[in-house]
């Protein structure tokens, strides 16, 4: 899908490595350098041990569908009219964090809870890559 007119993420100090990773086709997850608990979204401080020490973990890119919706009515209409129906999902990554994304390469009606998925990087603009997910066949594991 074209990204013209659509919301473009504005990276900040906390999120810049995540978006840079996407541009390099690497799914990077922030992790506490003290206690090792990964988190998403990145926040710069660990909510478990309150440490500011951050490191970035390259995620496997594999996960499963936690919940999903099918957008039938485009909002704003002129921007999403050619995209509907499209799927937005919360995907639970193997690393234990959850991430909003799109499920692509799949009939929306075929999506099921816990369906295995894997990341696919979509270079939607010269400086923007979105991490979407597609079905992953069990045999690839």
């Amino acid at each position, binding site marked *: 899908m074209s*990204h013209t007119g*659509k*919301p*473009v*993420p*504005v*990276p*900040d100090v906390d*999120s810049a490595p995540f978006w840079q990773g996407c541009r390099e086709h690497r799914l990077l997850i922030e992790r506490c350098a003290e206690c090792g608990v990964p*988190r*998403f*979204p990145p926040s710069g401080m660990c909510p478990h041990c309150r440490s500011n020490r951050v490191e970035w973990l390259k995620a496997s890119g594999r996960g499963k569908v*936690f*919940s*999903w*919706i*099918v*957008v*039938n*009515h485009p*909002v*704003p209409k002129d921007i*999403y009219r050619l*995209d509907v*129906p*499209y799927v*937005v999902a*919360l995907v639970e990554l193997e690393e234990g964090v*959850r*991430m*909003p*994304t*799109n499920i692509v390469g799949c009939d*929306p009606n075929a999506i099921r*809870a816990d369906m295995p998925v894997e990341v696919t990087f979509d270079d939607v603009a010269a400086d*923007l890559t*979105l991490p*979407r997910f597609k079905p992953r066949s069990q045999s690839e594991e």
Partner: protein
Amino acid sequence: MWNLRDKYAIAGIGHTDFTANSGATVLNLALQACRDAVLDAGIDMSEVDGVVSFNFGDSVPSIAVATGLGLPAARYAVEFSSGGNAANLIVQTAAAAIEAGLATNVLCFRAMNGRSGFRLGGGRDLNSRGITQYTAPFGWITYPQAMAMWCRRHMIKYGTTSEQLGTIAVTCRRNAVLNERAMMRAPITLADHQASRMIVEPFHLLDICLESDGACAALVTSAGRAKDLRHKPVYVMGAAYGGGPNQGDDLFDAIRWPDHAHNYAKYIADDLWRSAGVGPEDIDVAEIYDCFTYSVIMQLEGLGFCREGEGGAFVQNGRIDRDGELPLNTHGGLLSEAYIHGFNHVIEAVEQLRGTAGSRQVPDAQIALTTAGAMTCGSALVLRN
């Protein structure tokens, strides 16, 4: 926990017409509803020294209402930057402010041109800073889209069906038919619900609340003062506000929420019932926040009207009808009366407890529940006459 059981009361209520195009400024709507609440209570305007409200950047500050009403000295004019989750919180806060000596008679209001002005449900701005950078770029933008994710999770975990959601829409509409204030008064059937167009699966159009222009207001004062005023006081028995861990970076964000199959309600239930000294079985009428049909189910479960996962079955077979075991959204709710961000539920609860709800009156209603919120945080009141 709220420890002011029965010490404060709602002594006056006011509201404007609920329309799709008010032709008035939001300030004017707020002033009309607030003025009428003070007149309804029967106190002198000069005695009002507090104003509490909430808004989403779509309304007027409380000081503007104090100014417009000509209050001589607003000692406590504040507002919450919040969604419907604060609709009961403002009443709780008004009472707490009086208890602390910050004010004596406090107006609570919500005013909005939610259809002709800023349309909350029509999509947030496309600014993708902060938490929104992780949601909006994927086309996850509107509140119906946000809450459909929760609803789906409930369906995944418990097998809740669209027909069960539809029962709530039909019930609300049946009540709205009797309500002269309601925006939607044409009866609907479950078949109409099922045939209404899909907006964002699993939501049909009729799972989604209205967009409205209008305002509602209530005057909160001490129980002692309320007893001397025009109407039978409606006492605040119990009150609670909050949610669980990971309420998120804003109202939309629930990325880290434990499980979207349940919402804030389960986290405030203990405080609410313990503070009120009664339980779900004592509720005569329930005005449950229904921005979407599903949110009713999660709140019924979370507040203990039924067990988790059983909310879909609970609402069926007439149980939530006006003459059922738990009369629910007797005005038609946000789904069919109007979307005044939940504060119209408070107005209706007061009418029911005064016995002035006309043809939609629940006989001998003595204790009412109002709730506000659908996702990670919310508020609730237990009111009695």
